[in-house]
């Protein structure tokens, strides 16, 4: 029965839109928005619309491993309702544990069918990291470890999308000491194009933008060195922050309840990680462009950056100095080293006057004698 369902010719996105009751105008709005999100010019709107009108949907398998499903949550809450209705509804046709109707054996069957039927065509979306410790028993679905499932699903995938920080860089569960050895996807899957879409969660529109790009062009978007789409991850939150003028002016919030905080000054000194975080939050914002962390008065925690959990404290610029305890940062260690150096130098200086007594004496006498030889 499952097989029969999959035999049906895949509708295009446009057909699906119309079937869902949207009109042409809504569709064009959606196409325009997506064109802007994926960083294309206005003239490309037609290209995007055409792709959605003519191309059949991309078969997608969406796997969930060590994660909290916030990526899926973010995705279905994209500002434009069509994102959820169209992209996700169609996505879920194939396989995604959280949102699919099927369960148990039927769900496994659906996964298998998609993998065979669309071998080499489907996009594998992975939400969550893969635990490698203890042969992967920390995350098992249907009697298989996530490692096995990922290997099988990735073998026939056209490309892999690593949704969120878990799949892109390991996120919180890979923080030290990482007991389950949570591992991001790119360290496991080799030889497939991997698109990393980090963030905890990534912005829904960004996720939709990546899928629309794949659909429109049939290729993966341009990636940066780390493997993130350049359209969304080439600028730091800091570079697009509306509080940036306060940073440049040197006006900072010192504590969260001071006058500077009320004035909306820069949150740099209370630990904002915007200057080291590459994401589109400052531009796209969240919840339909309503706000983003800095706008609500809280610094960026750098959730889309690798190792952000271990890379320092959330409310402090300074970062812990490895091996010297949580409370010691580079500057306190540096000051101790400086103090020790000063003590050592003082000790050496004193010792010099004993250890090199004769040499110093000779020099002094030599100098004095020369002085005495001269007439006054």
């Amino acid at each position, binding site marked *: 029965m499952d097989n029969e369902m999959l035999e049906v010719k895949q509708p295009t996105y446009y057909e699906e839109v119309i079937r869902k009751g949207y009109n042409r105008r809504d569709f064009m709005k959606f196409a325009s928005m997506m064109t802007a999100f994926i960083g294309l010019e206005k003239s490309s709107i037609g290209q995007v619309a055409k792709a959605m009108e003519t191309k059949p949907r991309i078969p997608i398998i969406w796997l969930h491993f060590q994660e909290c499903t916030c990526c899926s949550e973010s995705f279905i809450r994209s500002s434009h309702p069509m994102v959820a209705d169209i992209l996700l509804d169609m996505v879920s046709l194939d396989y995604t544990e959280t949102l699919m109707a099927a369960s148990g054996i039927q769900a496994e069957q659906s996964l298998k069918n998609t993998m065979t039927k669309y071998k080499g065509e489907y996009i594998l979306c992975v939400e969550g990291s893969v635990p490698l410790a203890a042969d992967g028993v920390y995350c098992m679905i249907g009697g298989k470890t996530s490692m096995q499932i990922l290997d099988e699903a990735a073998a026939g995938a056209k490309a892999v999308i690593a949704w969120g920080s878990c799949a892109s860089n390991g996120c919180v569960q890979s923080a030290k000491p990482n007991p389950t050895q949570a591992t991001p996807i790119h360290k496991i899957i080799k030889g497939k194009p991997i698109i990393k879409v980090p963030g905890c969660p990534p912005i829904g529109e960004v996720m939709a933008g990546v899928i629309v790009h794949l659909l429109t062009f049939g290729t993966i978007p341009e990636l940066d060195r780390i493997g993130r789409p350049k359209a969304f991850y080439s600028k730091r939150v800091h570079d697009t922050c509306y509080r940036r003028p306060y940073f440049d002016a040197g006006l900072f919030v010192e504590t969260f309840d001071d006058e500077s905080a009320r004035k909306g000054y820069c949150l740099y000194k209370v630990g904002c990680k915007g200057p080291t975080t590459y994401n589109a939050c400052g531009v796209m914002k969240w919840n339909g462009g309503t706000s983003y962390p800095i706008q609500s008065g809280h610094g960026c925690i750098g959730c889309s950056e690798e190792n952000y959990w271990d890379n320092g404290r959330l409310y402090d610029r300074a970062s812990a100095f490895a091996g010297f305890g949580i409370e010691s940062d580079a500057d306190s260690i540096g000051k101790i080293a*400086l103090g020790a150096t000063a003590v050592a130098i003082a000790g050496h200086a004193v010792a010099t006057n004993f250890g090199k007594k004769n*040499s110093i004496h000779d020099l002094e006498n030599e100098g004095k004698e020369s002085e005495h030889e001269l007439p006054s």
Partner: protein
Amino acid sequence: MASKLLHIQRLRRVYVWELPVRLYHWLNALVLVALIVTGFYISNPLAIQTQRDASNSYIMGWFRYIHFAAAYLFFFNFLFRIYWGFVGNKFANWNQFIPTSKRFFQEMWTVFKIDILMLKKNGKEQHHLSIGHNAMAGFIYFLTFIAFLVQVFTGFGLYAAMGGWWLPNLFSWVPAMFGGDAFTRVVHHWAMWFFILFAVIHVYLVFYHDYVEGRGEISSMGGGWKFIEEEVFDKNKPQTPNPEKK
């Protein structure tokens, strides 16, 4: 007063540090101070309370501007010094810094025993009188060059995302290698402490050598001259550079 116990040295004036080396040294000192001061400010800016609009001030902007400008000066100055290590005089040569022989390490050990531990031989004080750098100093300068490289790579790596020029962009792989800007920034900050500790020890040792050896160690970076005892000079004659005292 008659000279009864003194052996008055005849001194030979040796042109040790050429003008380009001295210019490099002082420019380097200046930009390093600028980099450290502005770097500290950038990492932990002062709390400024003002009624002025942000549009009227650019404090953080200026500190960062000075940091970046000084960084470029530092970088090109460093490149120049590497070049001078091949064309400059024997005391500026790269082989004064990079250990390539067993003798180099032996001399380092000698310096350690004589100048740090101040060991005596048969109850008598010992000297290690070199003309340019002694091997220990040379090696420490080699370490500073490595620290320079660390700062250049991490610094330009962090800067690459902001700069449009190809030069800093050459280093954009660095943060990717470190797994992001956050850790790159941490490395950049840690490495700065090496410069502070180096500067403190360096200045002390210059005074130490001047005090104990009395041959113009401090002023040598001004005029380029050192005043070398004729005995030492003659002894070194056949085997400069990289002399070793036995």
